[in-house]
Structures are given as structure tokens and as C-alpha cells.
């Protein structure tokens, strides 16, 4: 079984703080990590590999620094890694990025399963998986929590509007793994050493994928950032319990917490 896992390297959101009053974003600690949902996708692939044997190929579209993300994937147990990196690919928007990834995945055919993280923790983007499924002509299962293989059929526990449900699909298919799926394993130390010292990461350019400049022109623009108002703290209310319960529920509804 051949599994392609698409991963993205992001700046760790934990190292970023937003000052709402000054309307500025501060990078306190610049650390690059694998997008958490993508790491869950890698873990899902590796669990299938442990249970049934599989070749796991890690794929990433990014800057040269994304090599580290792929080394980490190799250290976790991926068998090979491909980095799509090219100056021509700088500043892509979501539709273009999905198109480039699809082109690369096609080049990795044949494959049985494509896995990707459902959401990017930095941009909040969650359309790539669905776009890939359409471009590759694959059935899709999104928001997946657990995957298991039963004959040639993939059994998936996934979230549907927040509730867990079961789904099944025959391979080949594309599955987007939720960031709420089981967290990824730690990479074994010896494999960390070997991922850098012995293994290779293939690098593909825009030319390798036959991409033209017209295809790569971004179409989406940013019109700037908006900052939510600062949290107002210290409001205190007093009254009979029933009324107080009502106040609390109002706040929860207003904040869309229930």
C-alpha cells in the first residue's frame, strides 16, 4: 500500500502573540513546526503502516526550510520525502497551492491513499484537502479521527458537525485528518540522526511539475488585518441564582461557546 501524506511547515503559533490594543502581531519565538493536523495525518499513516505494512511518502510544498519538516517525517517513520520548493512558487494563494500539490501527487502515482491535515493552525485554512480530492478525482472523508483498514476498505471515525460518526470508503481515497485525532508519536532518536545523515529528500521545482507562470499567478489579495477588541475583564454582577445562570448563558451564547 502506498500512502502519500501532505504536510506543511508553519511558524509555531505558540511563539506568536497578538497585541489587540496595539494591533500588532509579535513573533516572540520563531520556531518552525509541522502543522499539528498534518502531524496527526502522518501518525494515521504510520499506524496503517504498523498494522498492514505500507510505503509512506511525505510531501511538502514550501520554502527550503521545509526540509526540516520532512526530515522529522522521515524520523517518525516515513519511507521517503519530497519537497516542492521553488522561488517561482513564492506567495501562492490557496487555490494555486492546491493545484501544485495535486500535480505533485499525480507524479507520485500510483498511490492508495492521500492523507492531509484538515486545518492549518496558522492561517486557519481548511480547503486544501477538499480541493485536492476534486483535482485528483478521489472520494474524500474529512475531519477524520481514526482510520482502520478492513480488506480494501477504509473504515473511518470522523466528526460531522462536532459529533463522531462512522464512514467507509474503498481505496484509493483522500482523507483529511482532524487536529483532534490521536497525537503523533515521538520520533526515535536514532532515526532523527539518520534522517539527516543518511536519508535524502528529493526536491522538485516548478519546472519538474510542468507549471507555467500563468498557472502560478496568485489571484487573492489581502486587504489588511482586523483585530478583535481587547478582552474586557472585571465585570461583576450580583443577583438570585436563576438570574445569574441566565447571565452566564447569555455570555456563552454571545461568545458562541454553546
Amino acid at each position: 500500500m502506498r500512502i502519500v501524506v501532505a504536510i506543511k511547515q508553519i511558524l509555531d503559533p505558540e511563539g506568536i502573540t497578538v497585541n489587540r490594543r496595539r494591533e500588532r502581531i509579535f513573533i516572540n519565538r520563531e520556531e518552525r513546526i509541522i502543522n499539528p493536523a498534518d502531524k496527526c495525518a502522518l501518525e494515521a499513516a504510520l499506524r496503517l503502516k504498523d498494522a498492514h505494512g505500507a510505503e509512506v511518502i511525505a510531501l511538502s510544498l514550501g520554502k527550503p526550510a521545509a526540509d526540516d519538516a520532512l526530515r522529522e517525517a522521515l524520523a517518525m517513520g516515513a519511507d521517503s520525502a519530497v519537497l516542492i520548493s521553488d522561488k517561482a512558487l513564492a506567495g501562492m494563494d490557496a487555490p494555486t497551492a492546491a493545484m501544485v500539490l495535486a500535480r505533485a501527487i499525480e507524479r507520485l502515482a500510483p498511490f492508495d491513499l492521500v492523507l492531509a491535515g484538515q486545518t492549518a493552525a496558522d492561517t486557519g485554512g481548511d480547503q486544501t484537502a477538499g480541493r485536492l480530492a476534486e483535482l485528483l478525482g478521489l472520494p474524500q472523508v474529512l475531519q477524520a479521527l481514526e482510520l482502520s483498514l478492513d480488506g480494501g476498505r477504509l473504515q473511518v471515525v470522523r466528526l460531522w458537525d462536532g459529533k463522531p460518526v462512522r464512514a467507509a470508503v474503498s481505496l484509493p481515497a483522500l482523507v483529511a485528518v482532524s487536529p483532534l485525532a490521536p497525537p503523533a508519536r515521538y520520533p526515535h532518536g536514532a532515526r532523527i540522526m539518520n534522517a539527516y545523515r543518511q536519508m535524502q529528500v528529493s526536491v522538485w521545482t516548478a519546472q519538474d511539475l510542468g507549471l507555467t507562470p500563468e498557472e502560478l499567478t496568485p489571484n487573492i489579495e489581502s486587504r489588511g488585518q482586523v483585530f478583535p477588541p481587547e478582552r474586557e475583564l472585571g465585570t461583576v454582577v450580583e443577583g438570585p441564582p436563576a438570574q445569574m445562570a441566565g447571565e452566564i448563558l447569555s455570555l456563552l451564547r454571545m461568545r458562541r461557546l454553546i
Partner: protein
Amino acid sequence: MDFTLPKEYELLRRMIRDFARQEIAPLAKRVDVQEEVPREVIRKAAELGMMGVPFPQEYGGMGAGELGYCILMEEIGKVCTSTATVIGAHTGIGAMAIYLDGTPEQKKKYLTPLARGEKIAAFALTEANAGSDAAAIRTRAVRDGDDFILTGSKMFITNGPIADIVSVMAVTDPSLGPRGGITAFIVEMDWKGCSVGKVEDKMGIRGSGTSELIFNEVRVPKENILGQFGAGFVTFMKTLDVGRVSLGAACLGGAQAALERSIQWAKARTQFGKAIVHNQSIQWMIANMATEIEALRSLVYRTAWMVDTGQPFTRYAAMCKLYGSEVASRCISQAVQIYGALGYSRDVEVERMFRDARIAEIFEGTNEIQRIVIASDIMRQEGVRISP
């Protein structure tokens, strides 16, 4: 001159840091109170290769050298000194002796399961009458045919209660003294005659078991002579030497943790209408701690590099241990001060860290011995011989 850490070591550090934070840190208090590092933690660490970091992959190790090992000890030292001590005694001196002076057969038989964490190692040198004066040990190994009969007892042995394989120093010829009269042996604790004696009730690192090891006419085959017969002194000096670097790294971790907690606390604690971090006295304390930690960091990692590149490092290793233990004690004590009364409560990590830190100035060669080692090395270059 490139001071950047090679990428594989950055990833290694991140992996260990995450593991330490998620698997070890939440248990640190329990480890102290229940006086045990859970076997489960050791197993998980072993599964990731953390019990054999410096050893070559052909012997089940991680192949990350002294540099990788110092990274491990720093990150674990940040969250739990007891766990760092268990791993340190196991990897840094117990298994290390076999790595440095073992035959290929001994490495295959003993180093491999130790590197994989399948068995636990200890290093047995100290006795009731032989602490700093290591050459005064009295445990006897008497030749009997091809074997040796080992009789005696060792004291204050880290991992004593849980060790499977122990590197033991014994007198093989009382007339020769340390030069020629002491031999190192690899002893399996499930052999007849081996037992664990008194377990120490310690001020700190209470999760690390420290005990007496008793050898009552234990038959040790000649295949288990570690290093040259009669050259045990050299074996144990070599081992303790390199062990000091990673001990310095563990102290670095403790000091760093103290600094981070001090900053976190100073930002949160308000007195006289503002966070205490705005007091100049607190800022100076933080600056002093940070400066010493940077100096220690440079010292430790440069020394690790010297070890990995085959350069002489004895003096610098002693400095790592000497300076590391003192910086850790100072920083942690300072952290307790910054916490104020709360720093004295067992609810707070720095209280435990304070008790845990004290031993570093004493074991693995007291800081007085370290000063002698440093001075001797300096004087040797000056053509002056110092005797301890």
C-alpha cells in the same frame, strides 16, 4: 566559526524537550514524594533511544555522541533531577565504563541491552572509607582458577536498588595500590551473592534510588574483567571524567528551569501595585542568573564538542561539573528567594529543585576534587606535579 547546532541535534532537542514536558514533568512531584521514577517512564524513554544516546547504533545506541547526550541531560534536568540522575548514572558512568573499556564481546553482551534500556546500569566505586580517596577501596577480588571471588560492599551507589549490570572497582593486588592493584569488573546483580543493602533516605533526588551494594563471595568470570587487568583506576578515572560533562549539562538544565520559573513568577506576582519584575533588584537577579547560565552553556557544549572530536577534555569536564553545580545551586536558591515564602512550600517546583540541586556539588567527585583536577591539569602544563 559556526556555533549553530547541526539540524539533527535541533530536532533531537525538540523531541526530548517535548517528551520531557509531556511525559516527565507532570510526574516530577510524584517522583519526589513516592521516591521512584516510574518504570513506565524509563520504558517510554528507552523506546525512543534515550537510554543510550552517546553510544553507536551498532550497539543499540542513538549514535548522537556526547553532544546529543548533553542535550538529553539538559532537557531532562530542566524538568526532573531524579530522572536525570537515574539516566545519568545508567548511561553516563555505568554503561559508559563498558563503552570506553569493554571488549567487542562485552559491548555486544552488555552495552547493547543497556543502550536499549532493557537493563539498567550502575557504577560502583565509592565505599564507606573511600569517597574522595577512591584509591582506598577495600572490596576484594581474589583469583580462583579462571574466575575471581568478589567480596565487599559499595556505598551511595546511584541506581543501586534497580541495577541489573554494575561496573565494580575492586582490589586485585593490595600490595600495588591504585597503580596496578585495582581492576574493574562487569557484575550481573542476579548472580549469587549480590544483594542490595541499605537504601539511603536523602534530602533530594529522592526519586533516584541510592543504596549499598553487597558482594558476598560473588563468582566473576575472567571474561568480565573490564579494561586491563590491574588498570581499573584508569578505567574509572576515564569514565568519571566524561561523566562530568553531562552532569554539567543536567545542572545547566536545572539552572535554566530556575531562571524560567523566576521570570514567570516575577511577571505574575504583584506587590505594591505592580508586578515584581519591575523591581530593579529582581531584574538584576535575573540578569545575573542569565549571564551565568550562558557562560555554563558555552562551557558545556564546547566541552561536549571536544569529547566528540577526540581532544583532551579532562580540565574542561571538571570545570563543567564544578561550575555547573555551583551555578545551578545559585540560580535555584535565587529562584526560591524570588518566590518568597511560597518558594519554601512543597507545592512549588523550586522547593524540590533546591533540595535536588545540593548533591551536584558533592557526588561524581566533590567540587574540591574537581578543583584539584583543574589545578593539576594546569600545573602539569607548567611542569609542576601536584599530588592530591
